[in-house]
């Protein structure tokens, strides 16, 4: 069953025992962030956490970590909670192939229950905002889906973008927003700014999990996140029309903020503890003016803790990064078997492939770096043979240890593009990139002595079954 809003997803988490209600009174800081941080430190299967008793607030309801474990990620996709990582990714790939699924436009969204306009807006009054990490410059919106359109082609549904960008609340109706240059919203902003215009945006808070996953997925520029959400949830995605911008927004959102990124304006923002496990530093960033707020009665405020990995954002971005990279590579190289780009949003990726001829695998690795996501993220690629599962790090380590001779297996490219947040880049946004070719050389590449591999015995598969049966049936 697909979830039409955050509340039905929370109900499913609750039914599976994956939603923990924190009933004691907590301080907005540091308790909420520390508790969400702790979900990443208590082992597998961490729950979402819900706060309704926050000091000084009357009606506030904050939820954290809704997608922050493999169990919760599985429930997001309406899969059984114990679905393995590999099965979740395989299912993600299977559903992706159903793209596009046309969205369904609905009337009477719950977020239309309350409206505040212009100077009357005070985001601090509407949202229970709080700080995440000590060095953060302020309180952030970091799990909102932001909708914008291409100023040159505003009626193109696919070019309308839905993405998650960090936003600092810097005034009663003012935000700072981070458009990474490789992201679609930066293309929209560039077109608006070179015309001297503002860029209208709609910020949607408190959403169903699938549109949140899509907001974190690097789709092609003209692919619609709503049409892909429909594929991923296996039913048309419900949208509604935002009242001020006329943009398409989720029908089930808790809160809609509408306004503009003010053209050709930058202002100090940050720092913010980022998904790299490092702070961003202070930068002069875009400025958003909010002109209209629409919200449900007693809206639920959903946020996400991020810091030293792994935290919720790694689950949110993990499969959402692997699958588009796999699909984009597979389209050109059907030899590609699997892509594991779950490490820091794909700054490192592991790719398994068959080889057509010597030198082929490293060429696939280079291609991964020139996919839309690769341009800003894929800094290191480990290429492995088709019989190595890139999700099985023991196998990957075996490939690295036995198949690599640094004399010929490292391909280093100088001064390539990466997002500025990569703390190793120097200057920020420029880095060398590296392909480590841990595949077995094939002709005409005759390096090494790989002609006598030890394979699992032909009878082993049968014994695997036998041993598993014996283990399952032995007396307790």
């Amino acid at each position, binding site marked *: 069953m697909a979830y039409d809003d955050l509340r039905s997803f929370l109900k499913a988490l609750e039914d599976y025992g994956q939603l923990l209600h924190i009933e004691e009174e907590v301080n*907005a800081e*540091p308790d909420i962030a520390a508790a969400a941080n702790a979900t990443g430190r208590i082992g597998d299967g961490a729950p979402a956490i819900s706060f309704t008793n926050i000091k000084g607030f009357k009606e506030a309801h904050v939820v954290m970590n809704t997608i922050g474990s493999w169990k919760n990620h599985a429930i997001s996709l309406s899969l059984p909670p114990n679905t393995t990582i590999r099965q979740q990714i395989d299912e993600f790939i299977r559903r992706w192939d159903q793209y596009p699924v046309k969205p369904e436009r609905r009337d009477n969204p719950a977020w239309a229950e309350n409206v505040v306009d212009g100077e009357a807006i005070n985001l601090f009054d509407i949202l229970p905002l709080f700080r995440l990490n000590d060095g953060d410059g302020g309180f952030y919106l970091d799990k909102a889906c932001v909708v914008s359109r291409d100023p040159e082609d505003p009626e193109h549904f696919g070019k309308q973008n839905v993405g998650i960008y960090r936003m600092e609340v810097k005034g009663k109706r003012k935000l700072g927003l981070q458009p990474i*240059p490789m992201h679609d919203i930066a293309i929209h902003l560039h077109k608006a700014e070179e015309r001297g215009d503002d860029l209208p945006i709609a910020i949607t808070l408190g959403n169903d999990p699938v549109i949140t996953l899509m907001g974190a997925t690097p789709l092609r520029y003209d692919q619609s996140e709503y049409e892909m959400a429909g594929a991923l949830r296996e039913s048309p995605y419900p949208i509604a029309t935002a009242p001020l911008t006329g943009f398409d927004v989720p029908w089930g959102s808790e809160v809609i903020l509408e306004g503009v990124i003010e053209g050709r304006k930058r202002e*100090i*923002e940050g720092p913010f503890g980022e998904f790299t496990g490092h702070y961003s530093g202070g930068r*002069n960033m875009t400025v958003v003016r909010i002109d209209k707020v629409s919200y449900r009665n007693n809206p639920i405020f959903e946020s996400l803790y991020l810091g030293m990995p792994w935290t919720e954002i790694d689950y949110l971005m993990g499969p959402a990064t692997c699958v588009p990279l796999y699909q984009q590579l597979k389209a050109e190289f059907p030899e590609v078997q699997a892509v594991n780009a779950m490490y820091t949003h794909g700054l490192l990726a592991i790719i398994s492939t068959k080889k057509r001829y010597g030198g082929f695998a490293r060429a696939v690795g280079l291609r991964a770096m020139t996919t839309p996501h690769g341009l800003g993220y894929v800094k290191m690629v480990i290429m492995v043979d088709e019989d190595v599962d890139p999700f099985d790090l023991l196998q990957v380590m075996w490939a690295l240890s036995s198949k690599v001779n640094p004399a010929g297996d490292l391909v280093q490219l100088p001064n390539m593009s990466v997002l*500025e947040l990569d703390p190793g880049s120097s200057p920020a946004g420029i880095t060398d990139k590296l392909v480590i070719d841990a595949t077995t050389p094939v002709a005409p590449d005759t390096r090494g002595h790989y002609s006598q591999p030890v394979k699992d015995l032909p009878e082993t598969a049968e014994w695997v079954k036998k041993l598993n049966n014996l283990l399952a049936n032995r007396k307790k």
Partner: protein
Amino acid sequence: MICPRCAHEHIEVMAHSPVKGVWTVYQCQRCLYTWRDTEPARRTQREYYPEAFKMTQQDIDNAPELPTIPPLLAKK
């Protein structure tokens, strides 16, 4: 009161707690640092604020621009 981060003296109130008198959110009008007065001292008091995150007017002036503002298109 001064900004814990940049020591500026122009501070404005962003919000008061819905339950009266529990907390206040302040904002520095130079570096825009925003804090709630009930946060730990390491976030609210200049003398305890971490050196690594302190900010100066020079830091603000020299902060990188993201993304870069493109040149205006020539008018047709």
